């Protein structure tokens, strides 16, 4: 069981405590990890939460990826540790090369905060435990730069390798292939724009996010591997 979860906090992150609360509510033990530390401590999983790391200046995630903690996150990911990037966390993971592609401004050029319906396209990843392909979830989005884009070959590869985790049923931001979330090849690193931690209580409108976080807590760390894991051309692992 992955119970101890490190939630990374950059200056400008703002969903760290919401994420911690949601995880603890599900029986996990979440702790906030400062971006300037180089050691993750004893954790079984990592969440890079939403927010505006470094103000999202230059590009979302562009500065955050140079934070000292990101080396540890990369190592952890390479060793098969479960890593979930939510919203800004997804952007950081792409900038850091742990996931392919990039997130551009929404096609409508507006920030969007609202409930969206997404559908599981693959469950072979750390948030898919207990879920089935085709499952529909109501989870809020909250972003300006959530319009996923990648090279054609990358998209093809993502599809072939079953790495598209979620698709929107009604694309809100122009994402290629309606993509709301993807994983790396092994499925231990997932990035998604919707915020599962905001969908963990019916009092707030939905608890469809709980199962995703529960899955993260329940995943065994993927076996460490030395073989060269094939990745897309713009992934750095």
């Amino acid at each position, binding site marked *: 069981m992955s119970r101890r979860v490190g939630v990374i906090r950059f200056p400008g992150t703002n969903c760290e405590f919401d994420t911690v609360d949601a995880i603890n509510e599900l029986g996990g033990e979440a702790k906030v990890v400062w971006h300037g530390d180089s050691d993750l401590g004893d954790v079984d999983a990592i969440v890079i939460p939403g927010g505006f790391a470094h103000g999202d200046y230059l590009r979302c995630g562009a500065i955050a990826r*140079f934070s000292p903690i990101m080396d540890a996150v990369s190592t952890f990911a390479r060793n098969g540790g479960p890593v979930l990037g939510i919203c800004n966390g997804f952007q950081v993971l792409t*900038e850091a090369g742990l996931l392919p592609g990039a997130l*551009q401004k929404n096609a409508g050029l507006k920030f969007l905060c609202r409930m969206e319906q997404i559908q599981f396209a693959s469950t072979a990843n750390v948030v898919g435990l207990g879920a089935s392909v085709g499952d529909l979830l109501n989870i809020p989005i909250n972003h300006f730069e959530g319009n996923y884009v990648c090279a054609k070959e990358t998209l093809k590869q993502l599809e072939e390798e079953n790495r598209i985790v979620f698709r929107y049923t009604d694309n809100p931001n122009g994402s290629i292939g309606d993509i709301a979330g993807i994983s790396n090849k092994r499925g231990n690193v997932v990035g998604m724009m919707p915020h599962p931690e905001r969908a963990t209580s019916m009092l707030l409108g939905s608890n469809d996010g709980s199962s995703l976080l529960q899955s993260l807590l329940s995943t065994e760390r993927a076996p460490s591997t030395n073989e060269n894991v094939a990745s897309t051309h713009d992934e750095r692992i």
Partner: protein
Amino acid sequence: MRFEVKIEVLPREGIANPEGSTIERTLPALGFETAGDVRVGKVIRLQVEADSTDTARAIVEDMCDRFLCNPVIEDAIVEVLTA
């Protein structure tokens, strides 16, 4: 020597540029019927210490590769302005 450098970061060919399209849609209403092909990007001006224009350029190109520009979606044009 201190060089002033200008870096233009533009969305790569083939990548949607909604900001450009929005401006393009608005222009005719303002009487600018003939304007078109609008692309919007970022410009970064900075100063850097270097021995020569070439080194200045090399330093800034390195900056672009590593940091200022995301090659998945952007191209950078570097211009060394003054010594």
